[in-house]
């Protein structure tokens, strides 16, 4: 179903041909090692590239061009798969089949991609400082806005504190102070390095065959000078050293309790499918132990759920609770994991979780953006295709889940509470 074609040394296209959608899409990703030194540069780069090009020298002309292409969208991407940073662009657009005779959108979108990548708006062979400054400020504002949504802010703080000695602890967009220090010249130099020395992963879903898409994408990159590509990978900590508790305060009305656990299991490990199923039994979805026992039976939280950071070997449990429920909620949440370790998983819990995951995997094939994200992950680290993962989940038994639960250790308990509490 997904076809992988190497376009050139270090440039790979993954393509899914389908006639199901009215929308075609592609992403272009430059793969970097996520680290403090480069995080801010990587995050700033796509916004500056999309600010102006030689043929479209301001945001208004870019926007008008995309309007003319029947409301196509072309946006920036900055994502992390473990400690692999993928920076680039995501585009979606109406399929040519739905246009008046003779009109095209896909080919012009590739032209536009080439324009953005290779004909940036420059002055003295460098990005225009005024544009760089403008986008720096926007990025700083976005970074500072991460405190606005308390739920994701608490998770962000946990990651930062728990992984302070790992690259993973550096926020996805870097730090505001690092952004502030970037100069146009520095960003330009970084971009030349990104273009030459990053693996480039392309992903496409649409009506064209993989071969046809490969041929068209090749032209975007044809004749460009490329060098050795930089190494990428993720450090995995198998077991937590000791359990730590951190409390912080903010002027909020609902407390946020976030627990970080080390699973030590990533997509590259044979135990990964079992961990995924265990996570569903424990804390993901409406039949999970956290939802049924902690939220519904005990009425302890408005929300309580677990999620895997599957490239890093980390599990994160988040919940929203009253300030005075900290101890009881923490004990209840960790108690449900202990129950999994003891093998207290009913057939109904197991089968509901399995059905939910299998259904989500089948449904992923209906959602281009989810396929894009899934295969972006496969480009960053080894792992199963959707179809392989499906077969493995279908065949698992309870003992594999218990083993996965026993591999998990609590690293950090983080509580964001009110000013007065």
């Amino acid at each position, binding site marked *: 179903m997904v076809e992988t074609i190497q376009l050139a040394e270090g440039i790979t296209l993954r393509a899914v041909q389908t006639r199901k959608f009215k929308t075609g899409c592609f992403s272009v990703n430059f793969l970097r090692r996520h680290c403090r030194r480069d995080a801010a540069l990587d995050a700033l780069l796509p916004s500056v590239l999309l600010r102006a090009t030689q043929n479209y020298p301001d945001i208004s002309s870019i926007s008008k061009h995309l309007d003319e292409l029947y*409301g196509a969208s072309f946006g920036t991407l900055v994502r992390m798969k473990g400690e692999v940073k993928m920076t680039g662009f995501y585009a979606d657009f109406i399929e040519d089949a739905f246009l008046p005779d003779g009109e095209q959108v896909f080919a012009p979108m590739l032209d536009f991609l080439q324009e953005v990548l290779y004909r940036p708006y420059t002055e003295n062979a460098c990005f225009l400082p005024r544009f760089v400054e*403008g986008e720096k400020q926007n990025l700083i504002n976005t970074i500072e806005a991460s405190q606005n949504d*308390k739920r994701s802010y608490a998770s962000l703080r946990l990651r930062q504190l728990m992984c302070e000695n790992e690259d993973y602890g550096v926020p996805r967009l870097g730090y505001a102070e690092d952004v502030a220090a970037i100069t146009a010249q520095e960003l330009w130099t970084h971009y030349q390095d990104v273009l030459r020395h990053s693996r480039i992963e392309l992903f496409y879903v649409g009506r064209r065959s993989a071969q046809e898409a490969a041929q068209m994408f090749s032209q975007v990159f044809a004749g460009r000078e490329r060098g050795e590509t930089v190494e990428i990978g993720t450090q995995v900590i198998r077991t937590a050293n000791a359990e730590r508790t951190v409390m912080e305060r903010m002027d909020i009305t*609902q407390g946020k309790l976030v627990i970080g656990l080390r699973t030590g299991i990533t997509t590259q490990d044979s135990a990964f499918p079992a961990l995924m199923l265990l996570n569903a039994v424990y804390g993901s*979805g409406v039949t999970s132990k956290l939802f049924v026992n902690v939220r519904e039976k005990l009425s302890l939280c408005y929300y309580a759920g677990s999620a895997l950071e599957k490239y890093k070997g980390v599990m994160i449990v988040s919940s929203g609770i*009253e300030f005075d429920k900290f101890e009881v909620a923490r004990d209840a949440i960790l108690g449900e994991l202990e129950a999994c370790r003891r093998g207290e998983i009913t057939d109904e819990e197991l089968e509901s979780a399995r059905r939910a995951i299998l*259904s989500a995997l089948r449904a992923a094939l209906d959602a281009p953006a989810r396929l894009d994200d899934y295969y972006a992950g496969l480009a960053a680290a080894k792992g199963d295709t959707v179809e392989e993962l499906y077969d493995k989940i279908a065949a698992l038994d309870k003992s594999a889940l218990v083993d996965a639960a026993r591999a998990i250790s609590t690293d950090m308990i983080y509580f964001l509470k009110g000013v007065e509490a």
Partner: protein
Amino acid sequence: MKQHVFPRLGEEYWQEILDNGLTVRVVPKRGFARSYAFVGVDYGAVDTRFQLGAEAITTPGGVAHYLEHKMFDLPEGDAMNLFAQYGASPNAFTGYAMTAYYFDCTENFEENLRILLRMVATPYFSQQSVEKERGIIAQEIRMYEDSADSRLYEDLFAALFASHPIRVPIAGTVESIQEITNQTLETCHAAFYHPANMMLCVVGDVDPARVAQVARELTETKRRALPVRDYGAQESVNCVKPRVERTMEVSMPTFAFGFKCEAPTDGGDAMKAEIIGALAAEILAGESSPLFMRLYEQGLIDSGFAADYESVKNACIFTVSGDSRDPDAVYQAVLDEGKRLAKEGFPKEDFERLVKSALGRRMRDLDSFESICYRMCAYHFEGVDYFRFPAVYESVQAEDVQAFLSRTVQESRAAISIIRPKEREE
């Protein structure tokens, strides 16, 4: 069932209106693993006052949302678990104008459809279960209270309107939900959860006739009288309170200003009014507009800056929102740009380009099962067939948009809601 084909969209639907008044509509999508079923109830947070027979009823804020939470209780157990047994992911939401229940599945479609229909048709509230839910809903309300986005719009609506129930937050307040009992829920369920006040919409690789058959089996047979809603007297287009500000834990000031608009006179106009409003939003403040470009270059706005048009049962609002270090400068710039556009107008090619872009995006939106169902129901309750949108776009003229902007972007109609960061103690 009757087939309706829309060649320009590459779509079709099958429709039947059952004897009890329920509209069943199925949009076949071949080759998809997913199927999606959605029951929309024409009952939302603003339906707090109504006449049922001889009786005038006023309910506390937040009943529609409370009811949504409790509809998942069935005599045989929690509907969530029943769906899970058949591999579906169910969910629900309450808006100002609509409550909806839906599921997504890749197997056992018919079993899941049965659970969905049984769920909305079965009020099963014990005093104890209603009591228990109160804590969960109070927590949910607390979460909205911490959300700058929710607060911003709640403040704005309360500032714009004198008496329209859109002034009350969707979930109500921690105080208002204390007054809700199982009796309140039963009354509102009986009044509004009637087949003639609902629509079942299904998208996926399914058999339309079978969907209608199951719906016939599981919904009540006779028609009942529907309640008469009361949203208060038609309000003037002048706002009540021109400004509301508060401080919260946000990093940058965030703002929304709204201009009150005339309500469309009859259902047929609802879609046209919405399209005119949306195109006006693009002309005034869209990414390709002169205003956007100028404010962006000045660092007064970021890419989140946008205008929009919303209409909820006689409450029609043209909004402009975003984040800015200086919301008042943005506000003044928008008022000035409104005046300029009223006087000078805009190039015809800008209008044509924006129509092309909007049509393309609406077409692409037909890939989203969620969006198809939501819009089909929302428009159906306004008496409009959603799939007729290409013709409506073509009927809109640049002059309509020009007239809308001249009429609407006026200071007398506007209120501004701002949330500023708290002063940090160093």
